[in-house]
């Protein structure tokens, strides 16, 4: 029996990008459906009634929500494929990877959003905390080629999606991420050489235009 895989997503969503990368890594064929968050489809509301958010992966009719949980699901279901597992095999390294992925979601997302939606002192404060958070991740990277070690893995997938948003953050916050975190930007460029990442990440210019559109819509200029 062949699998039916559908991904409900939004082009500029870093959470959606994570799932796209993972599916590409595993060579899974799927149907991509773009959602309009201002006018959510009944199907999305049926598949994710609790949060009504994307991404949602629907595998043979079963919905899986929350991007990091989707990554774990993909890794557990498509495990004999041509690519190595996304999560480390050792329990402690798995716990560490989960910790940092959770940190990315707790810190990088919120601070990044404050960066591009606020102005003045609030923005400056967010910028400083944002850089501090990225520096911690840079520390975790150390001298390894990837956050996962020698191989690209779960934590790399979790964070690299944000790279498509760096340009927008920099333009809105008037700063250079590379200046503060050169190793992290070098890591991101290394990840971008992988086909699964390059084809899954949104165009940074389009992401920036997306933020401008949202700012106008919500009167944040």
């Amino acid at each position, binding site marked *: 029996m062949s699998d039916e895989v559908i991904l409900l997503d939004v082009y500029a969503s870093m959470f959606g990008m994570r799932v796209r990368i993972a599916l590409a890594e595993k060579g899974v064929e799927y149907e991509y459906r773009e959602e309009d968050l201002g006018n959510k489809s009944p199907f999305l509301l049926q598949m994710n009634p609790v949060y009504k958010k994307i991404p949602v992966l629907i595998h043979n009719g079963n919905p899986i929500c929350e991007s990091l949980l989707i990554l*774990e699901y993909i890794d557990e279901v498509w495990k004999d494929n041509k690519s190595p597992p996304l999560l480390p095999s050792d329990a402690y390294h*798995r*716990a560490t990877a989960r910790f940092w992925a959770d940190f990315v979601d707790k810190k990088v997302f919120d601070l990044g959003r404050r960066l591009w939606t606020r102005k003045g002192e609030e923005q400056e404060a967010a910028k400083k905390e944002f850089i501090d958070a990225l520096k911690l991740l840079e520390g975790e990277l150390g001298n390894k080629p990837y956050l996962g070690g020698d191989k690209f893995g779960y934590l790399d997938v979790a964070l690299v999606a944000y790279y498509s948003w760096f340009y927008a953050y920099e333009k809105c916050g008037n700063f250079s991420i590379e200046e503060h975190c050169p190793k992290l930007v070098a890591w991101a460029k290394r990840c971008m050489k992988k086909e699964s990442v390059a084809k899954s990440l949104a165009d940074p210019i389009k992401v920036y235009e997306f933020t401008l559109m949202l700012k106008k819509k919500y009167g944040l200029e």
Partner: protein
Amino acid sequence: MAEVQVFGVWSSPFVRRVEMGLKMKRVEYEYVEEDLKNKSDLLLKYNPIYKKVPVMLHNGNILVESLIILEYIDEVWEGPPILPKDPYERARARFLAKFIDDKCASPIWKACWSKGEEREKAIVETTEALKILENELKGKKFFGGDNIGLVDITANFIAGWFLGLQEFLGLQILTKIISLI
């Protein structure tokens, strides 16, 4: 020094979760009570980012965040499973556990401790969140089926703390959601 140490406070349901997980697997551990108003150097060293409990040490490995620790316990030790085997059921369990942390803990706390409009809003949020949980439980003995699992452990504070707090503060939320108890 014991092979497993847990740093916690007696009042924290997050710490209790870790202890429940260890007890399910019959793992012996040393418990260290922290004073959150005067955090020990060890706690700050082991959890410099969040400076919180629980922290679990195992053979030199430092683990933080209760749900992450529970997954680690399940992977390292034999015994009754905390998570289901099937990938889709695992994803459901993880989703509900995260839902409890994201959507139940905070409104329940606010419902108990805030006032006026904030409290009213929190009561509505709590009722909605608990209804979703109750729906998951339909017909089953535990969230984990016939046996306790990740979601039952995560929801522990609902049974223990919330009931106590509700009685103390005279609220009526839980009388609407009976079967969760």
